[in-house]
């Protein structure tokens, strides 16, 4: 893979002029190596160095941005096969399909779902990303109207899908400048579609019946001036979808096959009519290398598990998800409800909150920012310790919400109880809670 920070550093001017925004060339080199900066930021790199660096730093899988503005969505640029090696970078884009065979109400309902079905979690908004607009009527005018309607109805990026070139052209032109993804260029019409994409500022799906077929003409699209390509290698069942996504990633990462160095699109909406099955297929795409997955609807009940799966699979395995520090109310607590304190490691929060919720005992949950460490880790790192916790408890303002003085600490840090008690002073009483979250309901009920 890429160069190390020091190798990059050697190619930089080493003048520490700071114009790149980094305080030193070394810091800039480290940021480049970590993919956190762009080479263009340094005005003084020699052309020769530039060539060496961009060759080495070009991602083996092209990053493709669909849409514009806030809702633009990037896919691709993945560097690994397993998430423990390095974070999966750009979460699978989930698209909703509408066609020009649907009546207005259906289209409206789907777009409404796409726009509005969202969940808050760990301070993030989980939502679907793209609208796939498909021509099934063969009527370019009708399709163009639908694309226009879509553009007005959502800010999310569009996938413009038509087999018939005239329809595709009408749709693409309607969405010109919106960073749409055109579906699809085939071996037969790829020059034509590439030209259309270039003209309308779109990216292109290269579609074929097999990986071999697609690999044959992506190069032509690139020569046609369009580098932003997404691959559909024709899978219409789970097994070939798994095979294609897997093999295309291998070709890109292992064989450095530039013809296949692109993200993939999985049309799971065409693989089944069963909404449950469709969700299973989408979950496969999320875990195993699908970059875009097109679904028939964005309904709450299916999206909740899929979005959470996507969030989980694409989190940085070295940097835990965190919760905001503060007071969380569970089961509508009142002045005499118990107070539990724990850390802001999201997993800790979710598990503890779920158990409290299950107990149905109204409870105040105090979440303390310890950089997302679990209770024991934070304790041993000196972050979840008495002299840090006491000021937090005081500052949190929880005392104004309750009429008692008990605060429950996790059983795993029982050893800090005395010191915590001393730090808090005599107007608090520290109570040792359970070690395992699963024992919380029994504990709370027995209070």
């Amino acid at each position: 893979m890429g160069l190390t920070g020091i190798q990059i550093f050697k190619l930089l001017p080493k003048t520490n002029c700071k114009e790149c925004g980094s305080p030193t060339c070394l810091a800039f080199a480290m940021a480049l190596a970590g993919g956190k900066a762009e080479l263009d930021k340094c005005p003084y790199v020699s052309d020769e160095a530039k060539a060496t660096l961009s060759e080495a730093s070009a991602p083996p899988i092209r990053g493709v941005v669909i849409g514009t503005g806030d809702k633009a969505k990037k896919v691709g640029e993945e560097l690994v096969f397993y998430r423990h090696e390095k974070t999966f970078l750009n979460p699978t884009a989930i698209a909703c399909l509408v066609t020009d065979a649907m009546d207005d109400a259906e289209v409206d309902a789907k777009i409404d779902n796409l726009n509005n079905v969202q969940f808050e979690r760990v301070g993030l908004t989980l939502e679907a990303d793209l609208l796939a607009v498909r021509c099934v009527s063969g009527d370019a005018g009708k399709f163009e109207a639908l694309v226009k309607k879509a553009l007005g109805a959502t800010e999310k990026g569009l996938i413009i899908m038509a087999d018939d070139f005239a329809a595709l052209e009408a749709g693409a032109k309607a969405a010109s400048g919106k960073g749409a993804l055109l579906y699809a260029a085939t071996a037969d019409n790829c020059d034509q579609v590439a030209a259309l994409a270039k003209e309308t500022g779109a990216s292109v799906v290269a579609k074929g019946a097999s990986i071999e077929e697609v690999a044959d003409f992506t190069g032509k699209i690139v020569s046609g001036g369009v580098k932003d390509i997404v691959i559909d290698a024709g899978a219409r069942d789970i097994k070939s979808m798994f095979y294609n996504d897997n093999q295309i990633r291998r070709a890109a990462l292992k064989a450095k096959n530039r013809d296949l160095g692109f993200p993939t699109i999985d049309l799971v909406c065409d693989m089944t009519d069963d909404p449950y099955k469709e969700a299973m297929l989408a979950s496969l795409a999320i875990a195993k290398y699908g970059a875009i997955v097109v679904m028939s609807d964005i309904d709450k009940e299916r999206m909740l598990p899929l979005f959470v799966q996507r969030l989980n699979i694409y989190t940085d395995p070295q940097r835990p998800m965190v919760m905001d520090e503060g007071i969380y109310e569970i089961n509508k607590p009142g002045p005499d409800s118990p107070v539990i304190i724990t850390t802001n490691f999201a997993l800790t929060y979710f598990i503890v909150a779920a158990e409290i919720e299950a107990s149905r005992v109204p409870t105040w949950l105090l979440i303390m920012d310890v950089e997302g460490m679990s209770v024991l880790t934070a304790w041993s790192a000196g972050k979840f310790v008495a002299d840090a916790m006491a000021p937090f408890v005081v500052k949190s303002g929880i005392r104004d919400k309750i009429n008692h003085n008990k605060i429950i600490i996790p059983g795993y840090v029982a050893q800090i109880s005395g010191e915590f008690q001393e730090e808090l002073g005599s107007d608090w009483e520290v109570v040792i809670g359970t070690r395992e979250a699963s024992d919380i309901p029994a504990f709370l009920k027995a209070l």
Partner: protein
Amino acid sequence: MAFSALTEKYSGKMGTLTFGSGDQAITVGGQAAMPFCTFDGEIPNKPIVAMEVYDVVDPEWPAAVVDPFKDVINDPIAWAKKNIDEYGAKAICLQLASTDPNGENKSADYAAELVSKMIEAISVPLVVWGSGNVEKDAEVLSKICEVNEGKNLLIGPAVEENYKKIAAACLGYGHNVVSQSPIDVNMAKQMNILISNLGLPMDKIIMEPSTGALGYGVEYSYSVMERISLAALAQNDEKMQCPITNDLGKECWKAREVKLTEEEEPAFGPDLEKRGVLWEAITGFDMLLAGSNLLIMRNPKAVKLVEECIDELLA
């Protein structure tokens, strides 16, 4: 640059484990490739889903999980039969929740007898799962081993604090053990070593690396399992070559995303069944994709979805 398929050849291979007896016995594991990568190496045994039954049911269980078993929910044996006859269960997992000292605290003798009756009543292989209480499990599970000598059950979970009693009983009375470790590759390996040091052969051990449901640590289990699988295959690490199981039903169905009604959380939507089924099915599928050989699941619809995926991917 034309495309030519790339395949991975591994020096190692996952071991197998067989539980149950007679022609109903099931073998899991033995794969020489990462999950479903049949193009890389042989995957001789399909992953299996064992459907769980409880000897006591938490009254808080959501309707979506109770409904399919409403008529049998208070009779684990009838429940097991229904799972087999109606829902096509290939294996049963008896969850001995009633033995939990913080709950009904039923005795080891009770549990052992229930297991005997279960074995009598069903023909598919049986997994027996303790309440998770370390001391009580040691007592209950070893008693079950003794009373049901030679039945080749799969018994667990054995953890660092109680593995000796449970694994020794499995060794003495001819059963297989679930070696559970706290989401850590090295701990998983250490548990395998400790258990095999007692004399239990590796083909009688299955690993449970601790299972997190979607939103509750699924990614940790997922990565640990991928690492275990790679250690077993690519590094040919013999001490990592035990098949993997995931006890996921209970983890999924206690998630708030599954339990809360639309009134309580409007964003989640009205169809609790759909949410719950998919929560379990997708968690299960993720576990399979990370290397699981045996899933322990609850809802029949979720089981069916997962089994369909297995069948089609391995077709």
